């Protein structure tokens, strides 16, 4: 690559960014209303967080007994959503499913938004966020490999970089009207598949390695995390695809949705089996180490704040599992959306309030202190969700031109191509 090429790339990259910004900020009045709403929520959350930093985490419902709450619960869920995003990628690249190919960018953009949100949830949980530099290797002290949290920092940032690279590269190439060079993104796509598994496994190890918290200290935690990730991710993407078709004019073929439905159908059942296994193990033997499980599902010594939450989650899981088994539901966009929403919400409760919080109840000295999130926590949480949706909306907006292009080989079936042939189907845009 000579000097002129580099210079040309730099200027075109600048124009690309400018184009991306103007694409992302143009839209209908509905679009503006949506963006203003998200911005307002995000700013409210930002303000609540600023107050929390100034006055201390005492403004939250957390205490020395329940030392992690809504933030870490949402963090865990978001890591799962990010990992679940690659469920679009796995069929496309591992099974060479060409119809999935063009939609993989949806999953990867979702992953980017979810990772940003999960990092935000960690930052707002910190007592001294300004000391983040203590974690930077070289100038700080990074307790790697002993601390699982350092692993999590590595894999989350790595996953973010991977997905930013893949999405950014594809969009940039498309903007320049060039064919993406598979050498520059296909290896990263494969890497991101394994990386997605690793982010959620590492996040599970963060909890399951703690011998002092019996509810977490189970080998089933990492598999459970992955399974729930592969419920929440695809369920969200299915709804997203419907929205893209309806609002963005994206031609969504039936096959990708069917693949995702099949994934959710199976993972929902596996998750129910895993919950049942955990419940059996907790309840059949008994003993003090099962107290958290008892508290979660039935209440303990008159304390039962989480009981309605977890049974709602289990109910949503069962109902959505049954719905996904019904052909009439999975072919009907509205019912399928309802089923996905139920599955998604159920997992959000189960992995958040149903997993992070009860591990602290009873405390390590078996004191029962219940946790109730405060308004500040809800504001910050809503703000980060809004911020995530903001990122996702903008990213999808930029990617819309790619997604809108009908796929010429989509109707050709069965496709016996390979991964490297993928790039032939990304067409130069007519600018």
């Amino acid at each position: 690559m000579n000097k002129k090429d580099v210079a040309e790339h730099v200027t075109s990259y600048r124009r690309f960014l400018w184009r991306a910004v103007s694409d992302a900020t143009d839209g209908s009045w509905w679009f503006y209303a949506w963006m203003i709403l998200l911005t307002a929520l995000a700013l409210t959350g930002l303000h609540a967080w600023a107050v929390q930093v100034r006055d201390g985490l005492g403004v939250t419902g957390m205490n020395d007994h329940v030392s992690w709450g809504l933030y870490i619960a949402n963090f865990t869920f978001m890591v799962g959503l990010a990992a679940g995003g690659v469920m679009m990628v796995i069929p496309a690249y591992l099974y060479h499913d060409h119809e999935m190919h063009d939609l993989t960018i949806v999953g990867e953009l979702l992953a980017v938004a979810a990772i940003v949100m999960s990092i935000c949830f960690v930052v707002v949980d910190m007592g001294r966020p300004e000391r983040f530099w203590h974690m930077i290797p070289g100038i700080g002290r990074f307790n790697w490999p002993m601390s699982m949290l350092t692993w999590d920092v590595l894999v989350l940032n790595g996953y973010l970089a991977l997905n930013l690279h893949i999405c950014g590269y594809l969009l940039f190439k498309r903007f320049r009207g060039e064919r993406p060079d598979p050498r520059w993104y296909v290896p990263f796509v494969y890497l991101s598949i394994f990386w997605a598994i690793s982010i959620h496994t590492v996040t599970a190890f963060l909890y399951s390695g703690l011998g002092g918290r019996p509810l977490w200290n189970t080998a089933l935690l990492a598999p459970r995390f992955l399974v729930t990730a592969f419920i929440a991710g695809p369920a969200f993407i299915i709804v997203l695809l419907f929205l893209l078709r309806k609002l963005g004019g994206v031609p969504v073929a039936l096959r990708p949705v069917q693949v995702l439905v099949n994934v959710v159908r199976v993972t929902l059942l596996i998750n129910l089996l895993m919950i049942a296994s955990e419940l059996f193990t907790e309840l059949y033997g008994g003993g003090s180490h099962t107290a958290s499980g008892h508290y979660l599902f039935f209440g303990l010594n008159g304390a039962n704040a989480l009981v309605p939450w977890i049974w709602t989650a289990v109910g949503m899981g069962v109902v959505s599992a049954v719905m996904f088994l019904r052909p009439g539901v999975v072919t009907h966009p509205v019912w399928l959306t309802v089923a996905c929403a139920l599955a998604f919400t159920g997992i959000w409760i189960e992995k958040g309030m149903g997993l992070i919080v009860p591990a602290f109840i009873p405390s390590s000295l078996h004191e029962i202190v219940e946790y109730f999130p405060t308004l500040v926590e809800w504001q910050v949480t809503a703000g980060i969700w809004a911020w995530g949706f903001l990122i996702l909306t903008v990213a999808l907006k930029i990617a819309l031109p790619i997604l809108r292009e009908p796929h010429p080989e989509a109707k050709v079936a069965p496709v016996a191509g390979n991964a490297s042939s993928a790039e032939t189907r990304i067409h130069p845009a007519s600018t």
Partner: protein
Amino acid sequence: MNNPSEQPVETTEGGGMTRRTAIKALGATLGAAAFAQAIAPLTEWTENMTMDEYLQKHYKELSPFDLGVVMSRLEAETKAETGVDVHIGDYRPQPGVKFGYALNLSICVGCRRCAQACHVENNHDRPSGNSYIRVLEMEKGSLDLAKGRVNYDKPVPSKDKFYMPVQCQQCDKPPCVSVCPVEATWKESDGIVVVDYNWCIGCRYCEAACPYHARRFNWTKPQIPPEEINPDQGYLSNRLRPQGVMEKCTFCLHKTRQGKLPACLEACPTGARVFGNLLDPESEIRWVLKNKRVFVLKEDAGTRPSFFYFFDE
């Protein structure tokens, strides 16, 4: 399939675009103003923060001179804030010393004077009544913590009960140390697990990892009336803690590393507490380990505590 509402973007390149750009600019300005308003509390918060404090290195990387400067700065800050002259010392582990603690559950009466002495000695937050010691009233005949309770208020000892104070067990394999992402907490050569309050980022992973509820977080800035501040302070122990960082029992290292007994032991009216050097065969703690049937709390957690419990009978 195309959504008509998206069309203007592509078609109205002329006047519509400028109006749109103007609206965008207005929106961006409003957004920036709202953003500034939203983060206003952060500016209030940074007013009391100095660059020296922000850029301060990890305790282990500070030279003796640098540490001296830091401690003088902290003393001056305390003086400015509270008007109290405190002395902050950097007490290092003594060679040939590893601290051990034993507690006789047969003669502990559960009066909680140890917890109170800890509160006073270690400059704990007054409104929350913080203390590194939690005393459990337990059912006789059971070591099940689930049967314990902390908020007993009847005269003690109650019949059919025994009392078990729990504090940091200064584990030889401390889970709290291994999980810390920034090495803000570590185990020193005399066995004491310490926290660098100026390095901790406040993630509370250590609090989740500890099986003994030994760690405390400064959810707000600790409040103590100036006249109650204990002026004899250690850099790694009882100096006034900042908001948003973790703290824990240090066996009163500002006292014990000078050869003195910890505050909780001195407060005990029955002599249930035994403290000393595990490496000295003539020490009282070694006598207890040799002659009493001691046990450690949650041995199955594999933490190898330096804190032992025993019964007389």
